[in-house]
């Protein structure tokens, strides 16, 4: 009786190892599928199958119990996860990613906490367990709270502009980090009191809050990407602590990819990652911008949908510059209709996609793809910028900071040096905007005061629809 049992034990642990290898091979294969639009859907599903296999393999671990609790938790998670992913609007995807990322970080922090309680401190654990566990606890907690703030900002539960303690911010953050690391050191040196792990988690939570709160909304994509990478790294650390290769490989792949994405996004905005984390961007900028506008005393010219329609009907080339405003107003289908109407009149229509338009790289591509806009009309920044001088009308739909010429000309501007779409080189510019409120970076856009610019105030979707109906009536 005992011999077959022993063999089956050996087999089960080897089987798990093999299944984990299959699982992370599928992750890697799936992710490489994501590199091409043709294979992307399949790639994502392959990675999901890998995840299923990894979970099943984990069930095979010998001596597992608490099945009822595990399955209840899995079912609750599924019940919450499916509808939230199904019902989320494509425009709200960035904050949804932030939220999903946050709960992942939260899970990591909770696991470390429970392990600490379970073994009554880490005093009799090896350092190779303690260090990764405490790293995961700190980073997971930072990621959870930071992601929730990012979510709240993007969802406009919290104001997008920076909230912070000004000059005290950096010393405060440093202090919190020291408290977290200090508690970690105490735990590692054998302290077993629960208070240490609680202080560690709370200090990291506050650190997550205070790091993200002062960051302006414009930098939020970079922050989400960075937090995504951090959650990946802490998942890998949890894997080291639990000696679980699936966690190590999957976590590290996310850590690596998140780092690349973060750098790409920061490059697109010509900002360094440390300066984004330092935060406060947009707060000071708001003041500079406000003063600048006051000095300008520039006037803003409002236009009507009918005028805009006439201008575009007789244009040779119209370049549409979408931004977050288009996403918020769900205007992508209306924009597509406007473009078709213009094309019927032999107007050439192109879309200028700034790398950080919207809230995430590729955000505009996703939305316009949803509205069936042909891909060859979507032009990236380097491709479209030389075209603006040959463009009759640039139609800016809810894009702001990415069109601000101050980035090229005003060295005092906080966005100075950021590559922008040179909208101001076109013959005329029509800006669709809800109000004169500054953009997410909190700075005034000089473009609006230029003589060739006219503003059409209102909700982007209804403005675009109005222009389209004026066009058909012409």
């Amino acid at each position, binding site marked *: 009786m005992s011999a077959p049992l022993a063999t089956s034990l050996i087999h089960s642990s080897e089987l798990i190892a093999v299944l984990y290898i299959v699982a992370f091979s599928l992750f890697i294969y799936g992710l490489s599928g*994501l590199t091409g639009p043709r294979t992307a859907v399949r790639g994502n599903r392959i990675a999901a199958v890998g995840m299923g296999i990894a979970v099943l393999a984990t069930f095979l671990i010998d001596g597992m119990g608490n099945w009822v609790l595990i399955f209840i938790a899995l079912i609750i*998670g599924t019940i919450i996860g499916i509808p939230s992913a199904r019902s989320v609007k494509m425009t709200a995807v960035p904050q949804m990613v932030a939220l999903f990322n946050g709960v992942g970080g939260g899970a990591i922090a909770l696991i470390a906490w429970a392990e600490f309680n379970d073994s009554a401190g880490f005093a009799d654990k090896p350092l190779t367990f303690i260090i990764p566990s405490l790293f995961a606890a700190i980073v997971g907690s930072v990621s959870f709270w930071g992601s929730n703030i990012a979510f709240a900002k993007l969802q406009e539960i919290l104001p997008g502009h920076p909230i912070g303690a000004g000059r005290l911010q950096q010393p405060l953050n440093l202090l919190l980090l020291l408290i977290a690391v200090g508690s970690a050191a105490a735990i590692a040196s054998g302290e077993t009191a629960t208070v240490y792990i609680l202080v560690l988690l709370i200090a990291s939570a506050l650190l997550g809050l205070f790091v993200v709160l002062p960051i302006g909304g414009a930098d939020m994509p970079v922050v989400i990407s960075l937090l995504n990478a951090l959650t990946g790294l802490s998942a890998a650390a949890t894997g080291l602590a639990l000696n679980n290769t699936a*966690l190590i490989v999957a976590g590290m792949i996310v850590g690596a990819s*998140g780092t690349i994405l973060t750098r790409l996004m920061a490059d697109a905005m010509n900002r360094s990652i440390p300066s984004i984390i330092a935060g406060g961007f947009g707060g000071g900028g708001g003041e500079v911008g406000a003063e600048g506008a006051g000095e300008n005393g520039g006037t803003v010219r409002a236009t009507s949908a009918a005028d805009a329609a006439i201008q575009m009907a007789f244009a040779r080339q119209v370049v549409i510059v979408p931004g977050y405003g288009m996403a918020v107003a769900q205007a992508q289908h209306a924009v597509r209709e406007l473009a078709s109407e213009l094309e019927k009149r032999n107007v050439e229509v192109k879309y200028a996609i700034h790398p950080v338009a919207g809230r995430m790289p590729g955000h505009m591509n996703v939305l316009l793809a949803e509205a069936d806009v042909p891909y060859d009309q979507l032009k990236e920044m380097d491709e479209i910028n030389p075209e603006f001088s040959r463009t009759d009308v640039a139609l800016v739909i809810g894009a702001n900071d990415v069109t601000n010429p101050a980035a090229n000309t005003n060295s005092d501007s906080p966005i100075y040096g950021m590559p922008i779409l040179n909208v101001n080189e076109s013959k005329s510019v029509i800006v669709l905007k809800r109000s004169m409120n500054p953009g997410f970076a909190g700075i005034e856009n000089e473009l609006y005061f230029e003589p060739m610019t006219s503003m059409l105030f209102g909700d982007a979707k209804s403005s675009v629809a109005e222009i389209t109906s004026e066009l058909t009536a012409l």
Partner: protein
Amino acid sequence: MFITNVAILVLAGFVGYAVISKVPNTLHTPLMSGTNAIHGIVVLGGIIVLGLGEDLSTLDKGLLMIAIVFGTINVVGGFLVTDRMLEMFKSKPAPVKQDDEEQK
């Protein structure tokens, strides 16, 4: 064992870097969402610790259940949302390919 795991960790980092640095801009949002789903693998950590815990306190069981709920939301929600995003790209594969080649 630990050193072997660190070796795996380092290699996985390079693999991730190599695989992902080739993704075109257009797919960055789905990529972020997809990798986000993959780090939901922490759900395994929750399952293992809860499953192997011999005499866990009620508090710890609760914490671990929340961890598994969180991890599951991360995985299920992450993959579904990515799938929804990518479905939109699927209908027009050819032009995108072209666009891709132009970039190079």
